[in-house]
């Protein structure tokens, strides 16, 4: 039996525009997402900002009620059996919020240990064990407001593990961390997976999903556009080529025209300090460098290079497909 099941989950948000003549606008954040996560699996939900990752995770952890579809965690319905689901899951999100700044790290954990029903006589030992695991031993009696972002993030992880849940939901846990802090956190996540936890991880870092996840689902505009092992996803773009051009002053219309070229699979443009990097993924054997440069009239063109595609290119191709 799958530990986490999502069947055709949908979620629509309603927003209002205007002051006197108020108009209701509906935004489809998640448009029919389905997947299953097996026991002990580390499953990645990968997608750009606004793709629907957090909305999906919030439906699974009972904070949002789906507009349509259904989801189960360990067999419990996330809407009807919310309390049973909450007892069995841990939830960790990225960023600095979600911490009582005026309490010490220890008090934060003590309060949530009580909320999660950790027996009183076990709380002290459990908290000390988790402080050790996340590397906060020695700093636990300082107020959390003085913690660095990385320390707060590790405190989040410890909070999520207080009741030793079999299922963990990690929503962009490494966001905003420095490279060393992010690497340490990834090591902790990896250790949790090794310990047999079933984990759903959302991220928009391709390499993070690649290094940690057993399986990945790429989500874009509220829909899953690809699912499989990291190796499977890489194979989708293995037979192709990538042209990278350093440019300055490329307009949106140019990108649209490039996408229409025969043999072009995906086009993306990234701002880098003073310049832009235009990345064009092409079919194997398609000699498109001249054609691409021909469309860049009016823009300043710098270095031009051609290379083999990477996993990140696979991701970019998936999330930029119309």
């Amino acid at each position, binding site marked *: 039996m799958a530990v986490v099941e999502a069947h055709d989950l949908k979620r629509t*948000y*309603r927003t209002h525009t205007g002051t006197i003549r108020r108009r209701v606008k509906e935004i489809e954040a998640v448009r029919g997402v389905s997947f299953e996560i097996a026991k002990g699996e580390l499953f990645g939900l990968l997608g750009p900002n606004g793709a629907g990752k957090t909305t999906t995770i*919030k439906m699974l*952890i*009972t*904070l*949002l*009620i789906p507009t349509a579809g259904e989801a189960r965690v360990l067999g419990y319905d996330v809407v009807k059996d919310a*309390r049973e689901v*909450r*007892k069995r899951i841990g*939830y960790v*999100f990225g*960023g600095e*919020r*979600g*911490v*009582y*700044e*005026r*309490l010490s790290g220890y*008090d934060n954990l*003590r*309060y*949530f240990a*009580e*909320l*999660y*029903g950790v027996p*009183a006589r076990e709380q002290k030992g459990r908290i000390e064990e988790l402080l050790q695991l996340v590397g906060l031993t020695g700093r636990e009696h300082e*107020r959390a407001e003085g913690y660095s972002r990385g320390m707060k993030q590790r405190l989040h992880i410890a*909070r999520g593990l207080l009741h030793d849940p079999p299922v963990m939901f990690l929503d962009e846990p490494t966001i905003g961390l420095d490279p060393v802090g992010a690497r340490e956190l990834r090591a902790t996540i990896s250790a949790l997976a090794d310990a047999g936890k079933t984990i759903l991880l959302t991220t928009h870092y391709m390499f993070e999903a690649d290094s940690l996840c057993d399986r990945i689902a790429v989500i874009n505009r509220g829909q899953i556009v690809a699912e499989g092992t990291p190796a499977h996803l890489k194979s989708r773009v293995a037979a192709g080529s990538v042209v990278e051009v350093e440019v300055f002053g490329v307009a949106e219309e140019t990108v649209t025209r490039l996408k229409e070229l025969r043999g072009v699979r995906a086009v993306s443009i990234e701002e880098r300090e003073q310049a832009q990097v235009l990345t064009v993924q092409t079919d194997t054997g398609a000699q498109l460098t001249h054609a691409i440069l021909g469309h860049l009239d009016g823009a300043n063109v710098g270095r031009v290079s051609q290379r083999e595609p990477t996993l990140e290119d696979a991701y970019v191709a998936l999330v930029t497909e119309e």
Partner: protein
Amino acid sequence: MRILRLLGVGWLYHMKMISRSPFEGFGQVIWPLFFATVAFFVFRAGDGPRGLLYASLGAAVMGMWSATSTTAGGAMQRERWHGTLELLVATPPHFALVLLPVTLAMATVGIYSLGATLLYGHFLFGIELSVEHPVMFVGSIVGTVLAFGALGFAFAVTFVRFRAAWALGNLFEYPVWLIGGFLVPIVLLPDWVRPISWVLAPTWGMNAIRESAVGGSPLNDLAVCLGLGALYVLIGILITNRVLDAARRRAALSLS
């Protein structure tokens, strides 16, 4: 037992948080001074020591009420800003058990406000406070605090769904001073206002505190005050799940 411990631990940590806020601490110092000043001027316009006691106790309970009504909404707003509201909702206990200690902590801070108002009144304006039944007086204060916490809890439940509802706390602050008979006897209010006074626990709490101070019988007032408090808790518990479901349906929990 487990429920009591959960309430106790929640109360303890929320008290810790309140006591560590310099801004809220400053307010708790200034408010009693203001209320004691009001009491003094009301007394000057009145006639005799009974009026003095009436006004002084009324001002003290005003401080208690203000601490509860304005901070209950602020507490929920703070949970939203800190991103902890969602974490609290995502925990297994009935949300009423998570919320009640927060508002009880707010009401407890009100005890400080009450004491400080009486002390300011005494030292700055020479208002004498003689209490005929000290035990009943303390019991009435504790009962009133519990009822205030219960009323704050009923408010706070709605704050979970409506993020701007903290403004309601401010809105209720001044009318209850009047309707609850803190400074003006209820008999002076229009007839149609009195039923509103009767359903407000602060009215009965105020009566109980005054009666115990002047040597009367506060038990009936205290019983009604506690009964109303229990009713607020019951209503709060009954609507909590409905309010939470509405918040989950409308994605209102993550709004700040």
